[in-house]
């Protein structure tokens, strides 16, 4: 005799939702805070052990002792290290990174100016990388051992082995120097610079907003090579990870269930398996995006792309410490934020994480 039973779905004890929500948020905030302060501390220490005298770089070599002393005190260098760190912390939280020696402007202003260029480059790179990398990884997993699987493997291995600054140079040589298919270094040809008003700082978006297709086309011809290069690196990583996630999922029993139901192989792969791969893949894409934001240091140098990477390296080579520290903090901050963002997405997409 079958009887109706009293088993309830989800035997777990439920906490009040508000309480667990507040707890979750405060935990995240605490982690972020500790990581950020740690990050700032490391940056601070790097700034202090620099073999460059920050006073000298302000007052100049020929300053008298009195002037030197005054500047020394003004910078707070006579205070104990811990106090100096607290002052540094306070400045950073007010968004004050000091003045850049190179541009003679506040570092924060410089950063706001250069960051959109990097964001534009990394975003275009990631979009191309995901659009190509995910399908490549899925097909490689489904057709394990086929020519496309081998192709995906070779593509990834080459991506992992190629120095970005070298292949960037070769790309410029071939596609710009020899074939003339793409624009050269920089974001625009010189006579298009400052034609469209800067709204977002991303020229692709700004030119579209202004409806100026000529500038847009020129911007595309300039971004396509560096972004394509970054896209290749993100494709190599994303396709590899997608493949291994897919292989893991295709072995699961619910895949057999889906086949037993009579679903087509396409529905099994793209709806059921990829639906489960989506969750860990978000983290991978976020990581790769963060990697492109920072990894663009070398790419930006090669392509004279006026983004944050180029800003930091130029500042480094001319001992512009405020600019270096400010840039490092911002890049680190973006990194941390992306991590939190992917954590949040994870919680949204994976019903088990709730």
């Amino acid at each position, binding site marked *: 005799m*079958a009887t109706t039973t009293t088993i309830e*779905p989800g035997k777990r004890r439920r906490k009040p939702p508000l309480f667990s929500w507040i707890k979750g948020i405060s935990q995240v905030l605490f982690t972020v805070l500790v990581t950020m302060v740690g990050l700032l501390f490391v940056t601070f220490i790097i700034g202090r052990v620099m073999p460059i005298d920050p006073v000298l770089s302000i007052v100049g070599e020929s300053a008298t002792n009195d002037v030197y002393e005054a500047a020394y005190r003004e910078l707070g260098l006579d205070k104990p290290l811990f106090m100096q760190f607290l002052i540094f912390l306070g400045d950073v939280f007010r968004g004050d990174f000091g003045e850049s020696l190179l541009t003679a402007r506040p570092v924060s202003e410089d950063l706001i100016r250069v960051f959109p260029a990097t964001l534009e480059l990394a975003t275009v790179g990631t979009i191309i990388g995901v659009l190509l990398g995910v399908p490549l990884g899925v097909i490689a997993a489904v057709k394990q051992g086929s020519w496309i699987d081998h192709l995906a493997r070779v593509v990834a291995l080459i991506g992992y082995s190629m120095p970005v600054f070298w292949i960037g140079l070769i790309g410029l040589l071939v596609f710009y120097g020899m074939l003339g298919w793409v624009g050269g270094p920089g974001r625009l040809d010189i006579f298009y610079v400052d034609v469209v008003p800067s709204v977002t700082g991303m020229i692709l978006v700004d030119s579209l907003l202004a409806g100026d297709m000529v500038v847009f086309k020129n911007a595309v011809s300039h971004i396509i090579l560096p972004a394509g290069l970054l896209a290749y690196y993100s494709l190599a990583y994303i396709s590899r990870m997608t493949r291994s996630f897919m292989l893991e999922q295709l072995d699961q*029993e619910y895949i*057999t*269930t889906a*086949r*037993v139901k*009579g679903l087509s192989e396409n529905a099994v792969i793209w709806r059921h398996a990829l639906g489960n791969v989506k969750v860990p893949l978000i983290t991978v894409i976020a990581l790769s995006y963060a990697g492109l934001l920072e990894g663009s240091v070398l790419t930006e140098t090669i392509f004279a792309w006026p983004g944050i990477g180029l800003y930091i390296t130029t500042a480094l080579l001319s001992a512009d410490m405020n600019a270096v520290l400010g840039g490092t903090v911002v890049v680190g901050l973006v990194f941390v934020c992306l991590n939190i963002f992917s954590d949040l997405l994870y919680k949204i997409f994976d019903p088990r994480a709730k």
Partner: protein
Amino acid sequence: MSTLLEVRNLSVKFPTRSGMFEAVRDISFSLGKERLGIVGESGSGKSITGRSILRLIRPPGILKADRIDLQGTDLLTLSEKQMRDIRGHKISMIMQDPKFSLNPVMRIGEQICEAYRLHNKASKSQARQKTLDMLDAVMIRDPLRVFKAYPHEMSGGMAQRVMIAMMLIPDPQILIADEPTSALDVTVQKEVLEIMDKLVRERGMGLIFISHDLNVVSAFCDRVLIMYAGRIVETCPADKLHEAKHPYTQGLLNSLPQLEKPVDRLEVLQRDEAWRSAPSIDSIVNTQAKQ
């Protein structure tokens, strides 16, 4: 009793590093509107047999048979596309562990609706209503809540009922149940079995019940096949199981503890190499005409 399914000389092989592994070797059997049990130890080929009927042996596995006949259609001659219309629609299967056999990131309702709409032309709201009815039929108390739930929010027994609902909603004629209760708590095993049994009877379906549990099989089935090393070594009516003649079946029976006849020491099954090489027993019950 008419024959629903007839399998003739089925073999399944898997290539391994040390040569071909023959999981199923030349077995033949038939299924009517009855409950057929397939019993054997792990590795005897019983699950592979179940999956072969649905042609779910993935390469590099090799499936060979003279015929797999579903009411006059030889499944082996169908294209993969035609086969998809058989799966779920005509023959369905319930797997061992509902924890792994439900898609963890899809809502229960979505998964059942998907199965229904695949084989029936129905609007979303029709499918939804049908799904809620089906959940009710497998004795789920609060179908609406379960409809919106995710698999991890279910207990094992609940999840297996969901599985039954999902597999029966397109109204198949044959259900293959591959150890449907082995992963469940002992307390809910019986309930799940009863629900399944009731639905199968009501709908006049054929059931292939794969299990290693002799007691369950003899209680729930009409007829039993005993498999060993990829072959059928014995076949008998379920209620005559205790009179089985084959030494392997006897060995299996003797290795079970019995309340009525307690023994100090349970027998250990002694295997005979000869069982492995002996030919498979033909288990086709032909009701139309004797050959």
